[in-house]
């Protein structure tokens, strides 16, 4: 199976779609650092090119990890294969009392 998303760092819990992914698709990832085969995930919804897919369940309040670093906090439970974006993740730095 050819890969449809890339993972910056082995510690990441999100991958980035490098092609448009359709809901229900079983998609494979590739690790950027050594180009080794990453996890395979069933997409629960459409994930457009450039958008993030959860590689495993992320609990509410847990950090989304990309580049091996926290990029935000989950505002609700995110299941593996879900689209990870502004509707379920907020900045931990510039989120001035919003959520």
């Amino acid at each position: 199976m050819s890969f449809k998303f890339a993972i910056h760092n082995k510690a990441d819990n999100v991958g980035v779609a490098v092609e448009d992914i359709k809901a229900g698709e079983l998609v494979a990832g590739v690790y950027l650092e050594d180009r080794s085969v990453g996890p395979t995930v069933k997409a629960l919804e459409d994930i457009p090119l450039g958008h993030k897919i959860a590689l495993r369940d992320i609990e509410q309040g847990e950090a989304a990890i990309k580049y091996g670093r926290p990029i935000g906090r989950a505002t609700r439970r995110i299941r593996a294969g879900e689209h990870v974006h502004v509707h379920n993740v907020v900045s931990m730095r510039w989120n001035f009392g919003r959520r």
Partner: protein
Amino acid sequence: MRTFKGYIREDGRVGIRNHVVAIPVDDLSNTAVLGVAKLVRSVVPIPHPYGRLQFGRDLQLLFHILAGTGSNPNVAAAVVVGIDDSWSNKIADMIARTGKPVEAISIEGRGDLRAIEIASRKAARMVQEASERQRTEVDVSALTASIKCGESDTTSGLASNPALGVAVDRLVDMGATVMFGETSELTGAEDIVASRIPDPDLREKFHKIYREYVSVIESEGAEMLGSQPTEGNIKGGISTIEEKALGNIQKLGTKPITCVLDYLDPLPPGKGRLCFVNTSSAAAEFITLVAAKGSVLHFFTTGQGNVVGHPIVPVIKITANPKTAAAMSEHIDVDVSDLLSLKIGVAEAGERILDYAFKAMNGRLTAAEVLQHDEFSPIRLHISA
């Protein structure tokens, strides 16, 4: 070592373009410089909305930007037009320190039409003289360049920025100077940038600049989604400022950061450097400031398709987003979308950017130049008096 054919200026710095510019000191003088550009072939007018009742550091920064633009090695000669004598002469005197031809003309007591005539006569002579300047082969260590990304998406952090990072490393190794900045857009990765500044005093200077900049943003307490990240960033899949910053710094390569410049600090002479410059993260404001500090070539990675240019500095547009490369092809100079699909490696993509840069340095016009993207946006630091 690699070489390019540039214009060696009177002060020894090297440009890659040979413009004659008409610089207004203030908004009132835009009409006159546009008049000069209508009458005299190839004069580049640089209109802007500022210059009246500014004071303090804000005024100093405007002078730094206007005089720096006229002093840039891509400029052969300059006419400065202002409403009054005093500030016009001041900016012309700052440009004259480079040794290049410069003339100041004021409008008060004379009127637009007479000022346009005087400025046009001087500009016409400057254009003829500039047309005799020849390109000379110089080492790439004479290059001062700058880097910034805009309308970024996750393809920037995945592919176009790491590829640019390879090109930056190669340029610094060959002795060139590369400036980066985007102070606010380092939020979430500022510790990584700081850790790459070996000198403790410079590291502390960087921390202070970063804290001051971000404290203004934080003190507003405003909704940031749509501003940082921008609507375009969000459409492209970037969710937070931290994610944007971590993608942003992929273009910095791996070299130590050996100079840290605040708004008003001039770029000191030197070679083989990666320099942080305190700047806005807005594309045109960024390029306007680093051009005033002497950048003659700007590398701009984009995901969703920013179209920015500059009146005198060629901007090389690079994308790894295949949709943007197809839909906005007239704006894209270097397409590295095959890196996104891992058909090529990051080193190869970096070389592709570098090869294009040498073409631009030798005279090839970039997409932003032929599409007449001449954005010039001085940064304001505070209100007018």
